[in-house]
């Protein structure tokens, strides 16, 4: 899992490359957690994300809820069909802002 983070003022873009599973999810959580407080717009670029597991979903949900708490927004971009399928199965398609 390769995680690239780009912060511009209060907008944070996170580029995910590889598999977001139980092994890589803690890393992602540790990386984004300190940034979430002063982020209003969080964008996950999932163009290169091949797989997301429940542990990965947990981090996304956690990020969404943290942003919700202070009125921020979270958006998911370029998710593959496989990843979208997971969102669909878990009912998150309606919860996340997916483009």
């Amino acid at each position, binding site marked *: 899992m390769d995680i690239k983070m780009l912060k511009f003022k209060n907008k944070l873009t996170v580029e995910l490359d590889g598999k977001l*599973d139980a092994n890589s999810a803690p890393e992602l959580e540790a990386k984004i957690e300190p940034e979430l407080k002063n982020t209003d717009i969080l964008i996950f670029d999932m163009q290169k994300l091949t797989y997301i*597991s429940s*542990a990965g*979903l947990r981090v996304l949900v956690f990020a969404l809820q943290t942003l919700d708490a202070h009125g921020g927004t979270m958006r998911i971009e370029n998710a593959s069909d496989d990843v979208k399928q997971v969102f*669909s199965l878990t009912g998150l398609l309606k*919860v996340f802002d997916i483009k």
Partner: protein
Amino acid sequence: MKKENKYRFRRLYFQISMITIPLFLIIAGVIAWIVYNSTLRGFLEAQNSLMSHQLELILGDTCYTTDSFTKERVDWYFDKIEEYSAKLLEEDKNEDKQAMENFKQTDKGTVEEIEKLPKDLQFSLTREFYETIFMTMVKSYLDYGPKRLFVIDTADNYKTKVICDFVDSGPLQLGDELGIDLSQHPKLKKIIDSEDSSGNIVFELSHTFPDEGSYYIGYLPLVYQGETRAVIGVVYDWNEFNDALHLTIIKTMIICAGALVIFLALLQIIIYRRATAPVTAIQETVREYKQDKDSEKVVSAMGRIKVRNELGLLSQDISELAKEIDYYTAENVRLAAEKERVAAELDMAKKIQADQLPSDFPDRKEFDIYASMTPAKEVGGDFYDLFFVDDDHLALVIADVSGKGVPAALFMMMSKNIIHNLASMGLSPKEVIESANRTICANNKQRMFVTVWLGILEISTGRVTAVNAGHEIPMICKPGGEFELFEEPHGVMVGVFSKAEYEQYEFVLKKGGSLFVYTDGVAEATNASDEMFRTDRLLTALNEHKGGTQKQLLESVQREVERFAGDAEQSDDLTMLGITIH
């Protein structure tokens, strides 16, 4: 082992000696050569200076030059000595001392004025000069003890005629021929022929003069007007000199050799004590330690090595290393015990978890049901459940907690019990899931979640009322048909949004129809080339193996998944539940 030790130890010492001993032999050789040469030179210089001194003393006492005694006069005296040679040897001494004294008072040292004197007086003066030479020679001969001491005339007319000669046996008389073979004495010949007119003392080694043997001769030429007038010669026995020289050299050599041997021995002892012995001690200790792991023995053995060099430091390091190995060994034992305890606990937890999953499936003629859960680790986060709500209603649950291991297992236990309790109360699936979601969200600081598929089967009609909270899509096989994905409304997983609402749906399983629910561990099982099993392969497997009992079907699917995954390690729990209505 022991023999090899000794061999190695000897090799080290032998290797060092192979370098030091030849080096010492070379040094000894060089020292011997230097000592021999310097001693020889020193001896020769000493001998030369002794002989020079002797010759110069004779010269100074006889042919000294003053205002009234000139070289011209010496030349004249030598002529006269030759002239009166026969008369000089006579005992008669008829001298007019007064006349001699008178002459000396006014003497200017010229030949002219002495020639004016009467012959008698000339003779007397010549005699006096000759006697001075004679007496000086006698004194020198007795004082120095040379082998031979002589003065010869070298003027053209009297070449090699003896003036005076002192030797132990058969000294020559004034006027005698010296009888020396000049061809054997090139240096003397050079002086006599006035080729060398510097007046410097010349030394030569002779084997023929005064007789057969080895002699060292010094010649002091008296030079007048570029011509050698006379030569004073002194002869020493070369053998005596050589013996003394050799004795001295041998003594010096023995002292040097002795010193070198002692030094070499000391060096070898130092090498042995400072290097070889400590290395051997360290090696033996380390080998023993490998056998018995007794660090105290190492510490005491290393403490005995007290050399102040790298080996001393090495011994200290080895001591500390042994102590550290002790510490880490103890630590390892502790950790192993700890690991064992944790493993035992996990094993117990695994059994408790397994006990939570029903393994006695109801044996009813209306349906055939089977379920299995294979955790990826000791304990897992997947679970299934099946229980009668009442005689006609069978609750079916399959769920997957986010994450794995102990945290997922704890969350799974809680979720399972909440859902079980709520469903047992006879609530609808929607009510059960919404209520469970609220309860779980209330105490979920770690933001875990669980995906749940809950269905309640009305046994008499085959009607299933269900809710899907973010879980995998069920697969349904209609009687006589194939297994297919059953698209239904999907809610969000449980534990995330406390206000989430869930849509309940219904379908009917007619007699002969089957339902198959599973967790993502099945569809997402991965093989070595990172491919997933996926739902299409799952459907194929189900359709291939359907027809038997649910137990057979589920076991077949499990085998298919395992065959697909091969040796690749599975990261997710694998859970399935299947039911067929009869």
